[in-house]
């Protein structure tokens, strides 16, 4: 589904990603972990299409298409979803209107008719229950006055509504307490399917207790320096990042 080949990316002239290679197939859950500053956010930003980042080398193929040539909105319409680490508040834009616009823009892109009000409402109710998000939150402006946990739940709700092929969850667990984390993880687990892939970007292993990954990669100084299965995550939990980062630094000398 997603094929990242030798991606180099920089921002403001500073080189962050220095050759990333990654293959993700439908149905798989990949986790990318790494110390701060390793390039985790940069990777998700580059995939989602933030224009401040410049890709200097490499390519990304998504469902057979050249992802990097598409503007952000088309990447979303093709089925890429980014759950933001810090979802922004947008006063004055109602959450419901926003989701409806997003759902219908995607349908239009795919040559489908827009959802009528009744069908849309039905879909909303279904997904609200799945993700355990309150109706009252949705009648407000996007993320306005939402707590950290509510914002993350809103991200998962949007993911449920847009039914993406590839969901990138950028440090979704940051700032969440145990209960909030459990609810968010539940929602994500319900969205796992054989034709969907999930890329979890996380600093801590904790999230991976709830969402079991098929593959774990360690990102360090802009490169994936080690890959493994969920056992690797447990090892990192016990030993920290040092044993990997020191080995990587040694190899570079």
């Amino acid at each position, binding site marked *: 589904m997603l094929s990242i080949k030798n991606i180099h990316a920089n921002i403001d002239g500073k080189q962050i990603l220095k050759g990333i290679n990654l293959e993700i197939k439908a149905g798989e859950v990949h986790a990318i972990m790494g110390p701060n500053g390793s390039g985790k956010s940069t990777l998700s930003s580059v995939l989602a299409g933030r224009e401040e980042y410049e890709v200097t080398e490499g390519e990304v193929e998504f469902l057979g298409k050249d992802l990097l040539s598409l503007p952000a909105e088309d990447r979303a319409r093709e089925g890429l979803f980014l759950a933001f680490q810090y979802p922004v508040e947008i006063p004055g*834009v109602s959450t419901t209107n926003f989701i409806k616009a997003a759902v219908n823009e995607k349908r239009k892109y795919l040559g489908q008719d827009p959802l009528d009000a009744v069908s849309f409402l039905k879909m909303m109710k279904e997904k609200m229950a799945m993700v355990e998000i309150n109706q009252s939150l949705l009648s407000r402006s996007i993320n306005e006055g939402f707590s950290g946990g509510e914002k993350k739940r809103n991200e998962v709700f949007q993911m449920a509504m847009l039914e993406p092929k590839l969901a990138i969850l950028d440090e979704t667990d940051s700032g969440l307490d145990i209960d909030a984390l459990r609810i968010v993880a539940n929602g994500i687990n319900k969205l796992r399917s054989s034709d969907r892939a999930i890329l979890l970007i996380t600093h801590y292993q904790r999230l991976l207790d709830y969402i079991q990954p098929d593959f774990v990669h360690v990102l360090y100084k802009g490169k994936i320096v080690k890959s493994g299965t969920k056992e690797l995550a447990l090892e990192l939990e016990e030993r920290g990042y040092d044993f990997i980062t020191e080995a990587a630094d040694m190899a570079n000398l």
Partner: protein
Amino acid sequence: MNVSYFKDQFQQLQTGNDSAHVAALRTGSFGTFDQKGLPTTKLEEWKYTNISSLFDKDYQISPLADKTALLAAAIEEIQLPGNADANVLYFVNGRYEPSLSILKSASEDLQVMPLLEAASAGFQEIIDQHLGESSAYLKDGIHALNTSFITDAVFVHVPPGKELRHPVYIYHLADAQHQAILTQPRSLVYVSKRAKIQIVETFRTLGTQDSFSNAVMEVVVAQDATLEYYKLQNDAAHTSQVSSTHIHQIGKSHVHTVTISLNGGLLRNNLNMILDAEGNETHLYGLSLLKGKTHVDNHTLIDNKHPNCFSNQLYKNIADDSSTGIFSGRIIVQPDAQKTNAYQSNKNIILSDQATINAKPQLEIFADDVKCSHGCTVGQLDEEALFYLRARGISKELAEVLLLQAFATDILEQVKIDPLRQHIETLIQQHLSIQ
């Protein structure tokens, strides 16, 4: 068009049965106009707004018109939703036309008549006391010009205790089909103790010649009364205005105003609030969506003359193309006006390199126990918010429209007449959708 042309017109004015007060007012004002001429950009209050070019041409001044035919031609365009439920007043070419008025409120709840008849209807004292009082604050020649030409003005009176259930819609219709036209509508409104009135004013020009309106409305608000005032400026780009609204709160009362400017050439709005009693409360809201070469200058003045008054101003501009938006907010706190609370905020979004915003807060504070604040922001749309919407598949164009609509929302919400608010919401959506 120069002062001597106006002199001729002034001399030709039919004065008929005017009260001595009105006659003296006109003569005195013309003297002021003669002496000062039209404001130039050398005057501080006019430094951003050059109206002299508007007077490079010859205008017909408030010509008599075939009002029935005009109205028939314009009625679809000019009428606002909620019209059927409103007290409707028409000015045609700057003259109040009593024969076209349709009053929904009972005559004991609302009295509307030509100003020159109000004296004989028992309102002499109000007129002597209040007509022309805006000149103490608006001292320039253009204001004096309107006062010099007071003829077919309107007087609106709400008796004590009457809370009108029907808003008053005032339509200004100008005929610029054959010649450039200058109109000078004049209104005096008296809202008695414990009364309540909602006023909506809007302007429409027929024809493609230039149309310039020099309009003045003076409103007196007595104790425990409530005034809601809405101005909607959505006339064509070849139309211009100096539109002054002077509100004198003589008793502890509540005033709520919203000025919405969507289209026009040069629009100068003077809005004065004279807080002339303890405990007065006033709210001023404004929204300008500027495009093309539209120039909107909102000058507000709040004079706190007594203690414990509260005022709040929020004016927002969205400026695109080569448009210009000006906000000049003057707050005076007189020495006796302790415990004044005066808040002012001006927020602006600029969408193009050629658009201009000028913001000028002016606080003149002479008391020492007050809370006054002013703030101004000028910027573009929030990049993070834009990306968030695009990352969900919403196109860049639609994302911008959503954010601009969101920016306008809190002003729009201040329009409390439902059909009017919905209409303005639609106009805003249309305005923002055209790329």
